[in-house]
């Protein structure tokens, strides 16, 4: 028996359900951009190498160009279109605006989705390759520029806006830390 090569799937995106037929070859990125008109997620390389297509799957960042749409059924998908709270920008969005964390803006949706997750991963105590001592007893170091650069290394920026991207992530982490305490 030849298996069916397409399916009708339901995707949960930014809290809304979308039902659509997909050829199994469709990546989540193509489903978002070509089928659902959610063009905020960008296609840079289509090979997992640039991060422009970064979205959150069940709250964790992932590259949507290597994620098959059919395999994303049942997961909570958050795209750049869904990170703000109504009219109120996400603190990471606000920080990118305040500090000019971009030039052309093509990599920006991916940078922002990635940064949102970086701040959460750090708050959850995840070490990184920049962390000297990964033993749990050592604790996680502060989100220094070096830590941010390493943790954000999956997001390339052809305009080279890295200096202000790092500042924006640091500011957003600080703001969110304060909000969490308040």
């Amino acid at each position, binding site marked *: 028996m*030849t*298996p*069916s*090569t397409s*399916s009708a799937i339901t995707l949960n995106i930014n809290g809304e359900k979308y039902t659509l037929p997909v*050829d*199994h*070859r469709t*990546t989540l990125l193509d489903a978002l951009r070509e089928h659902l008109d959610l063009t905020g997620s960008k296609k840079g390389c*289509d*090979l*997992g190498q640039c*991060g422009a297509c*970064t979205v959150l*799957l069940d709250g*964790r*960042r*992932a*590259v949507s160009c*290597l*994620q*098959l749409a*059919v*395999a994303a059924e049942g997961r909570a998908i958050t795209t750049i279109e869904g990170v703000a709270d109504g009219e109120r920008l996400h603190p990471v969005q606000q920080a990118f605006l305040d500090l000019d964390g971009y030039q052309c803006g093509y990599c920006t949706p991916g940078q922002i989705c*990635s940064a949102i*997750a*970086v701040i959460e*991963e750090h708050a*959850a*105590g*995840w*070490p*990184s*390759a920049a*962390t000297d*001592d*990964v*033993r*749990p*007893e050592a604790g996680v170091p502060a989100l220094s520029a070096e830590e941010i*650069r*390493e*943790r*954000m*290394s*999956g*997001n390339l920026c052809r305009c080279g806006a890295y200096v202000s991207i790092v500042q924006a992530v640091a500011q957003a982490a600080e703001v969110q830390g304060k909000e969490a305490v308040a």
Partner: protein
Amino acid sequence: MREFGYERAFDVSGAVALIGSDPDARFLGGGTNLVDLMKTGVERPALLVDVRELPLDRIELERDGGLRIGATVTNSDLAAHPDVRRHYPALAQAVLAGASGQLRNMATVGGNLLQRTRCGYFTDISRPCNRRSPGSGCPAVGGEHHNHAILGASEHCIATHPSDMAVALAAFDAVISYETADGPGELPIDGFYPPVGDTPHIETTLPPGALITGVTLPPAPVAARSRYRKVRERASFAFAIGSIAGALDVEDGVVREVRLALGAVASMPWRARAAERLLVGGPASAEAFAAAADAELAAAEALPDNGYKVTLMRNLIVAVLTELTEEVSR
């Protein structure tokens, strides 16, 4: 890309049954390697069996102090786990040194072990390649090979295994568990990746259709003092050109136990047993470390453009052993 069917498996026997003996069926983990290779036409499966919902996503500390890691544990969860970081820090470091935060969230332990080489001829289907298309030749030997193997290669293939994680697993004598229609089985990582010889297309000793169910790390107190160092062509998010996982136990200046495995130098993570044998019982000194490195690398065979790796690996072995010795005396 060829059209394919998609099934989700919810239990191990169901996953194994869905794959059956179909050579055109593949398990789908995070898809970060498989989907990539399907886009370029290197992989052309007719059926994908998604393993991400299998109940194999746990990490458990065993009674004897060993660690049991499920096959669908993500690379991120592996590196963040307190028992991994406490008892096998080099494993957490190796995983964190690989790919990007996004990819580590998607990638699974099983898929990481089975990821394919990054040799540029292997991934370009317009070129010959013995590994992808047996008997077609190996253009890397006389072509682009600056990141190819210096140990254990053959004239038929000089590709390296790209995994960082597997290097640390080799240092810690990991055992890989799998399941087939005939029942469960186990393979030590030493032997999991067979010698290249004239069969580079045979990449593991897993039986056909086998589902990897997990990896077990035997208890290894020496692993509590371990490190992973990786050298690459940019500071982050790049494959290794040379890497090392090392663990060391020194008492009164004498090496009691040592583990060394090298990455990006062979078609498998390379356990440096010759160096280990020479070191045990001897002094923890710079001279002894250099002699051990030389003993291990005596068998190295370099091509015109990858000879730098011999020096690089020698320096890495000495550096990591020196750092670990300093850590002991702290």
